[in-house]
């Protein structure tokens, strides 16, 4: 290998390092002696994803707004799962951060590991199930939002076909599909739901293609459990309805966007930060829905008739006061077997491990 090709490789390596180092920069130059509470965030995606990470960052901004001078927040975005995340979390912990939110399922083990090494730092892990004395977990009951959205969809569909762009067949996603169809069929027994799996959380092109395929097959209301606004945009173009995911996606389809299920982490993040300040923070698990404000609905589309809005609002309020549940028996699975008896409700345990379709879903769950 000659000299100038070495120079070239050197340049290439410098470029790569410059890019990668941006990941580690955030928390390093942190001073602890200013008396402020320091809160750190680890994000899996870019803030600009307009979905999952975007909403977590809104929660971070809410802490700054609510507590102002008393806190200082930092974040590191696009942190890949695995050793990298452990390094980033460890760095946050060692540089004087008091409270660290790790906002994706894949950070579970690294968070627990780092938490062991830093017993004085408080950790909060989203969507996981492993806890310790200084590690709490939290997640949202997004299926409550799907219940309200499903009611609206059942009323708005003309073709009686709901299209569902899905990511991966995990309980979280299957629970969403079931909540949707149960709600839709409660107001319109003829509704069917068609599911297309795109095997990705985020691929705008593929999400759009799946949306088009569903529309071509007769769907006139589109749900998604993927993170880009592409399906909403397709719905707008094709003149059908759509429901936004994770954040308000109205601007991508002003006519099509019926409402969206918003993950609102702000109240939880502010409350937990205050708890650390008042020294009342304890570990535990929070699965919040409408009641705690962790799940919200985006403003309803003006095109939804008043009686449908009233129905949706009644369900939302019912979920808050406990009179309505998204999985109210009797519920049958696809084979017709009763899985939740009349008068009963699905337990959280069943919801968390949900791996079957309820009656009314087309096709079967991929194994």
């Amino acid at each position: 290998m000659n000299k100038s090709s070495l120079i070239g490789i050197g340049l290439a390596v410098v470029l790569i390092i410059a890019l990668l180092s941006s990941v580690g920069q955030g928390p390093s130059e942190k001073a602890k002696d200013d008396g402020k509470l320091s809160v750190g965030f680890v994000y899996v995606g870019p803030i600009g994803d307009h979905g999952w990470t975007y909403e977590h960052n809104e929660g971070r901004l809410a802490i700054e707004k609510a507590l102002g001078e008393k806190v200082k927040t930092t974040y590191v975005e696009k942190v890949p799962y695995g050793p990298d995340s452990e390094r980033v979390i460890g760095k946050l912990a060692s540089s004087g951060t008091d409270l660290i939110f790790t906002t994706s399922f894949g950070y579970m083990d690294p968070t627990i590991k780092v938490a062991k090494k830093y017993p004085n730092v408080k950790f909060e892990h989203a969507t996981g199930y492993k806890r310790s004395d200084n590690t709490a977990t939290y997640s949202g009951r997004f299926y409550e939002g799907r219940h309200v959205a499903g009611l609206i969809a059942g009323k708005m569909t003309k073709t009686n076909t709901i299209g569902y762009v899905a990511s991966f067949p995990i309980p979280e996603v299957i629970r969403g599909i079931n909540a949707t169809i149960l709600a839709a069929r409660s107001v319109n027994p003829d509704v069917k739901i068609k599911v297309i799996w795109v095997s990705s959380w985020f691929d705008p092109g593929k999400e759009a293609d799946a949306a088009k395929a569903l529309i071509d097959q007769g769907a006139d209301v589109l749900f998604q459990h993927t993170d880009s606004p592409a399906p909403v945009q397709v719905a707008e173009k094709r003149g059908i309805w759509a429901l936004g995911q994770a954040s308000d996606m109205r601007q991508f389809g002003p006519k099509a966007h019926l409402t969206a299920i918003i993950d609102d982490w702000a109240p939880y993040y502010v409350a937990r930060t205050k708890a650390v300040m008042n020294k009342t923070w304890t570990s535990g698990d929070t699965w919040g829905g409408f009641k705690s404000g962790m799940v919200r609905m985006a403003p309803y589309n003006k095109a939804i008739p008043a009686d449908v809005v009233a129905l949706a609002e009644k369900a939302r309020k019912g979920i808050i006061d406990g009179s309505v549940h998204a999985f109210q028996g009797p519920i049958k699975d696809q084979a017709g077997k009763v899985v939740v008896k009349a008068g009963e409700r699905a337990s959280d345990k069943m919801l968390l491990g949900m791996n079957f379709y309820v009656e009314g879903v087309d096709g079967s769950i991929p194994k």
Partner: protein
Amino acid sequence: MIPDWLTPAIMTIITASTPLVFAAVGEIMVEKSGVLNLGVEGMMIMGAVAAFAIGVTTGSATLAILFGALAGLVLALIFGLLTLNLRANQVATGLALTLFGLGLSALIGHSFVGETFSGLPKLDIPFISKLPIIGPLVFGQDVLVYMSVASVFFAGWFLNKTRWGLVLRAVGENHDAAHAIGHPVNFVRMMAVLFGGSMAGLGGAYLSLAYTPLWVENMTAGRGWIALALVVFASWRPGRAIFGAYLFGGITILQLHVQGFGVAIAPQLMSMLPYLATIVVLVLISHDVNRFKLSAPACLGKTFHPSQ
């Protein structure tokens, strides 16, 4: 009787395939000149962000397309300077280019997240565009789709029927011999690299202007790499590359439709299918090992300096 979903499904296939056609045809030209540019993904994403940014700010589709190509070209110029003038390793530089493009596009695109672009105007000839099936498919596309098809014919004609195409292939086959008979090896390669860059840029522009008219980070989602694979499996022939691209796009869309009809096949398997089928078909049509070796440019990936 033709089912209702067929025409829109074919329209979707065309949209899904067009970015691949652009990028693959560009890369064929680059590789035929003996340069391996693995930065297609980076050039595509830069094309996507530039086209979208210009499209949203100026509202002009023409300017947007132009700047999409230009952004790919600028990135290709960096690659050309590093590999041809400084004789850097092409593989490493290409990979760095992809990482660089993904990062830079995220930075540039930051303020454009959440914007929308009204999309490219489609050709609409009164009456003719309304004909069943043929109308919308042949006469109802947007300008970039026609450009992508034209580029295939152009590349085929240029490589096989023109003197400069012959020079380009000579440079790619044996740069020392080409240099000995007086051809400007690095100049020809630079031109090919720049052409490849602007084509990748156009592919990216198609993504952010027509396919999904929005900007989100990493929206190319690996399409640059698929284009690179298509080039090899198409044995460096533009005609086969477009066939491969449409086959890949076609199976991608069909597997989604099959899922929608409720056929119980694992989606992971379905997602594999386009890759699998494209590879199998293209390997079958280029099964003759000797001919395949002949079509691979002999100097692919080798650096050249006149003094050596």
